[in-house]
């Protein structure tokens, strides 16, 4: 991805799903120890998440696994007769993308960005926003990632220190902070906005981007042709492995060719990423990944909020095996008491 509009190859993946996708076991697969252990998996795309939650909690034989359980529904699952909650340490982060390119506020000043980080009460966010099923974020790399580990601690919740730093950086009097987010992160953004108002004494204008405007907003962020209409965007991102987080997390969020970079490229970051991308020694690559994470933390290139766990509601007779970076079911199996084995389905 590059800033020039005609060099950008943005891809739409939003396509209608078929009502059902049925996977049948390939019993001839080479890795027999891994699986498949199930004879058949049926993905239902014609059932809404809300309906699916009711079915997995209240019935047997209708829905066995529902992914992406909201923290608001945790109690519903935990009190269910038929379902169990599975929480997986996932390679996911929720952060505030800071638009370092705004002209009328000092978001290009690291002191401002550190102040935003120090304004956040992450313990409250984890407790009230995620029902406890998340970790306070310190940098981009989760502490359970395999590669690029560091000893970073979350920025302290220090409202007084944040306010002092914010003033030193010269935030204009009366200038409201423009916070934006997507609908599914509205609750997190509202808590973040409260923290900013309380700690910094500023107005925060929160915009929830409606789902019907999501694609246009994604284009604007990725293409970087027009000025971005936010100061901070509460945003969720993932990784495809946990071996070298800088490759897919930091590179996408801050790199010159990163689709989610908000603000000009950062020279030192580019130099570190250049060395990281051409390093073929795994040990040195891990060191560089950690160094990159420390750099973005020290510079507070984002407001690091939380590493949410991936939550699943699973029928109690299913031995579910969850993954940090994917949703694969090769090792998942069902007990003898499961409806499909009782019925011979």
């Amino acid at each position, binding site marked *: 991805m590059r800033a020039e509009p005609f060099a950008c190859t943005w891809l739409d993946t939003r396509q209608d799903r078929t009502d059902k996708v049925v996977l049948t076991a390939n019993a001839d697969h080479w*890795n*027999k120890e891994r699986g498949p252990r199930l004879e058949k998996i049926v993905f239902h795309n014609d059932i809404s998440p809300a309906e699916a939650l009711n079915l997995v909690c209240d019935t047997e034989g209708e*829905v066995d696994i529902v992914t992406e359980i909201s923290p608001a529904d945790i109690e519903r699952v935990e009190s269910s007769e038929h379902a169990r909650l599975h929480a997986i340490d996932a390679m996911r982060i929720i952060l505030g993308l800071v638009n370092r390119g705004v002209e009328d506020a000092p978001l290009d000043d690291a002191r401002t960005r550190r102040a935003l980080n120090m304004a956040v009460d992450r313990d409250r966010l984890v407790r009230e926003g995620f029902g406890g099923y998340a970790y306070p974020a310190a940098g981009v790399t989760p502490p359970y990632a395999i590669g690029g580990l560091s000893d970073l601690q979350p920025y302290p919740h220090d409202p007084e220190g944040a306010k002092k730093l914010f003033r030193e950086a010269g935030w204009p009097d009366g200038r409201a902070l423009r916070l934006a987010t997507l609908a599914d992160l509205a609750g997190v953004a509202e808590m973040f906005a409260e923290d900013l108002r309380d700690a910094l004494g500023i107005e925060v204008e929160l915009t929830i981007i409606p789902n019907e405007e999501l694609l246009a907003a994604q284009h604007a962020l990725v293409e970087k042709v027009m000025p971005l209409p936010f100061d901070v965007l509460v945003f969720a991102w993932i990784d*495809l*492995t*946990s*071996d070298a987080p800088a490759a897919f997390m930091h590179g996408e969020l801050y790199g010159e060719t990163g689709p989610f970079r908000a603000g000009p490229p950062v020279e030192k970051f580019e130099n570190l990423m250049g060395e990281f991308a051409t390093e073929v020694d*795994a040990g040195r*690559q891990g060191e560089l990944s950690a160094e990159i994470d420390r750099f973005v933390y020290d510079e507070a290139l984002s407001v690091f909020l939380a590493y949410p766990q991936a939550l699943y509601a699973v029928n109690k007779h299913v031995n579910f095996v969850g993954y940090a970076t994917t949703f694969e079911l090769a090792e998942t199996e069902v007990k003898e008491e499961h409806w499909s084995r009782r019925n011979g389905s």
Partner: protein
Amino acid sequence: MTSQVSPQVAAGQEGRTPVGTVHVVDPHPLNWLYITWNTMEEPVRTDERGHMVGAVLEDSRWTGERTLEIDVRRGIRFQDGEECTAHNFKRAFEEMQRWKAPHPPGSNLNIHQDTTIEIVDDYKLLIHFPEPDGLVLGKMRGMHIPSTRFWEEIGFGYRKLGTGEGHW
């Protein structure tokens, strides 16, 4: 670099018989990718913690800054019975390289357009890069290796739709 991908040893042939059915509702926007990972071979996959383990790629080693030697696992058969060899690996790589942005998650997963594959034998190949690419094994998490029939009849949509961009 080899140490970044742990070998995954195929177990004996005794494996258990698949049994039972589960019904799943997965509203995640990457469901299309999860379906792909559940059904297709890749050079590498990840274990539960996200660590890369070898799949079609049984082992690999850098023989220089710009050449990666790959051992293709023996004994892999696709669902249609075709044996998976270095030729399937090369075909999948070259099909992917046709597109400017084959991966919806981002073009940072792209492999340099001037990269080439040299087949040594049915189970060994060399990837020659125009410049060192220390991230290539991770990028291969987004490379799917199907049978010849897949490319001839479906091809990630472009047999029907005329383009592969966005259909991975």
